[in-house]
């Protein structure tokens, strides 16, 4: 006996096996992202007044990414429809678009990550805070006493770098493009009028003035933590989906010649996953960028 309903629908359920399988899988995905969104809500509701950041992410980039994914949903649908009407050339074109759109999305996402990665909050010994994007740093070689200027930041923690425990290079000064504020609270709402008025310029800070220096990575606060986790997991889904679609577009499309119906089913099932991943972004965008 062979496994039935791998391609044809079972009459009483109206589904072939893989279609039911992917819907079940998506149900579990809903619970996975549901758990993470609940975590977001609990962390945000539990944050003390003024401690939840606003306007930390670039709405313009977020909007572009939203449009890219919305467009890719349309091309995915058209790719499947092309298979249905047996137009292989159109399928190739539409899914090529899907892959390009997905890669552009990931590119923009990496740019945003990088932007957060080089964004530093520097607590100064005088109690003020310098905040801005890292430009360069000057190190002193402890053996030769020579100064070296570098455009990357060595080491993981400030105390390591300032103490010279990393490769015998001691931090002398840091140059950032940003501004200095009196209080931590001024950095929390970047949509406020005061924050918009702030003048950003190049600032060079001596290492001796620095108390603590930390970038806007996941550990910065609970917002960056949940931002990186949610979008990171979503980006992994985009990556996985792109891999599958690329396989079906490239080497996997050989099946078109032998079993077009089954191939069309594969396009449908992978498309369902892709639509789900798009949908998650539709929730992520307002939750992270717009509020």
């Amino acid at each position, binding site marked *: 006996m062979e496994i039935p309903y791998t391609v044809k629908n079972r009459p009483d359920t109206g589904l072939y096996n893989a279609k039911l399988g992917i819907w079940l899988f998506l149900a579990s995905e809903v*619970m*996975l992202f549901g758990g993470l969104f609940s975590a977001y809500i609990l962390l945000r509701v539990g944050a003390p007044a003024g401690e939840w950041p606003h306007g930390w992410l670039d709405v313009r980039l977020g909007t572009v990414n939203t449009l890219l994914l919305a467009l890719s949903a349309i091309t995915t649908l058209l790719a499947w429809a092309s298979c249905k009407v047996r137009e292989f050339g159109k399928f190739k074109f539409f899914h090529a678009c899907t892959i390009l759109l997905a890669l552009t999305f990931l590119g923009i996402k990496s740019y945003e990550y990088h932007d957060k990665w080089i964004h530093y909050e520097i607590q100064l010994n005088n109690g003020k805070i310098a905040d801005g994007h890292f430009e360069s740093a000057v190190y002193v070689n402890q053996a030769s006493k020579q100064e070296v200027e570098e455009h990357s930041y060595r080491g993981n923690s400030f105390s390591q770098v300032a103490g010279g425990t990393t490769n015998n290079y001691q931090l002398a000064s840091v140059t950032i493009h940003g501004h200095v504020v009196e209080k931590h609270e001024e950095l929390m709402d970047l949509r406020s009028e005061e924050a918009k008025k702030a003048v950003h310029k190049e600032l060079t800070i001596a290492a001796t003035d620095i108390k603590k220096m930390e970038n806007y990575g996941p550990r910065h606060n609970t917002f960056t933590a949940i931002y990186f986790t949610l979008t990171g997991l979503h980006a992994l889904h985009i990556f996985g989906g792109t891999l599958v679609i690329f396989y079906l577009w490239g080497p996997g499309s050989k099946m078109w010649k032998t079993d077009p119906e089954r191939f069309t089913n594969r396009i449908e099932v992978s498309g369902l996953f892709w639509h789900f991943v798009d949908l998650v972004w539709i929730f992520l965008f307002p939750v992270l960028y717009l509020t």
Partner: protein
Amino acid sequence: MEATVQQFPPYRETAAPHGHDDHGHHEPNFWSKYIFSTDHKVIGIQYGFMALCFMLFGFFLMLMMRWQIAHPGVPVPVFGPLLEKILGQPAAHGAISPELYNSFGAMHGTIMIFLGVVPLAFAAFGNYVVPLMIGAPDMAFPRINMASFHAFFLGGVVMLVSFFIPGGAAQAGWTSYSPLATTIPTNGQVFWLVGMVLLITSSLLGAVNFIATIIQLRAPGMTWMRLPWFVWAQFVTAFILLLAFPPLEAAGVLQLMDNVAHTSFFLPTGLAVGGQLADRSGGGSPLLWQHLFWFLGHPEVYVLILPAMGIVVEVIANNTRKPIWGYKSLVYSVLFVGFMSFLVWAHHMFLTGMGQKIATFFQATTMIISIPSVIILTCMLLSLWGGSIRINTPMLFALGFLPMFGIGGLTGLPLGLAVCDVYLHDTYYIIAHFHYVVAPGTIFALFAGIYFWFPKMTGRKMNEFWGRVHFWCSFAFMNIVFMPMFVQGIKGMLRRMSDGGINYSAARVPNAIDALPGSVMQLNGVILWAAVCLGIAQIPFIINLFWSISHGEKVGTNPWRATTLDWQTPTPPPHGNFAHEPHVARGPYEYSVPGAAEDFTPQDAPADKTSTAPNAH
């Protein structure tokens, strides 16, 4: 019985020729037959074998802990030097240090639940039996099935490896509460989390496969109300796994971020570790972990018990030679249990300071979920009434399950009431309660299943005499192990103490509630030796299991004279299971139908054969 065999021509004669996958069927070598197999029966046996090994290992960890509880700080006899050799400092002089006790405790729970009982009850029995019972050639997605086993295997390896890293395995209990789980100085927790993500992946793949198989691959005529109840139980279990596990995966990802990327999802502001302010942003919520954990954790209890109940129903129906009592009630009850299991999780958290209204809600749902559980148990009990009961090893274990699960279930009620729970929380009472559900409950049912389906897997029966020895010794010692724990718990002995409470026992505060009396402490010795005897009682089972594969009494395809489709195939079933697609003509438990030629009518026997029977459908 032999007649049943002959009605099936040898496999492959009738199978449709399919050129493209033929090479997969011919002369499979060892690797493709046993390691990279996509056959649901092989995968089921793989799961079963691995799970039994893990359970034995979990039992060993428990023995070490029981020694430490009964004789704190005294070197472990026999195994002490071995532990010291393997684990080094934490087992210095062959004694169990508190850190080692903690990691053994955490890993005992994790291994028994996620690597022992779930893989055996759900994955092993489900994989082997469900496709046979519904008349399917295999699972709906055989390769995903294989991937599921491999993810499980990897998860198990990661868990085992964590014992050997510096600092040792996870120490924060199987519940891994934050901030403890993030602040203990060992990477064991990271291994635990990675292992869990793999195990959850395995369960999700399995759950999707089971549900799709049961919905799509039922044989013609196998309507929903003709499904054996075991299949219903597995179906609901699969849904619980599908929907309850992902929130734990989410929690696991967040805790992994806490441990690896130094975020503060579960770490509150101002957290101090070892008297020093932790270098963390804070702002997280330790309660968030508990909510996400127990959102899985409680449905998980039903994952452990429902497949076991399914096995017991099959064994009881078969050995009472009459239809199971209240089939429809059983079906609706199991569906209701599955639904309600998502609404009771916070009864594990009564002591976290939640509001009274919330506590009342979860107390009410907890009482409600006990109703369908009682209905299921009642149906099993009433099925015995008026039956011509055959006492054999599977039936003994199934009968043993009934009072044991009864004790486990009923002692859970006081824990579900917030008022009593305040007192009983975190004592040995709760250890006794859930072990009665899972150890003499679920594990007895699993033994029943092993003895029951062994002839289907091998064509031979396990030895009956040694089976009975195994049952009676296990039954006695299980109760001597767990019954005293109720007493200890009610007297106030706390769980998770590496010295077995001896410090509390010594601390006599004037005018305060009395410390633990000596008699309660002495029970630790009784439990230890009962546990050792329980271990010895498993030796006949282990020998019987392996010996019977080649030396057991040879039997036909249907030695228990059972009605369900799993017994209507050749033994052991070939790849593809059925030579012809079975056509199901009646319900699953048509035993002793008046007027029928035999006292059982297989589900796929043609309808005309029993047309003289008054209720042949």
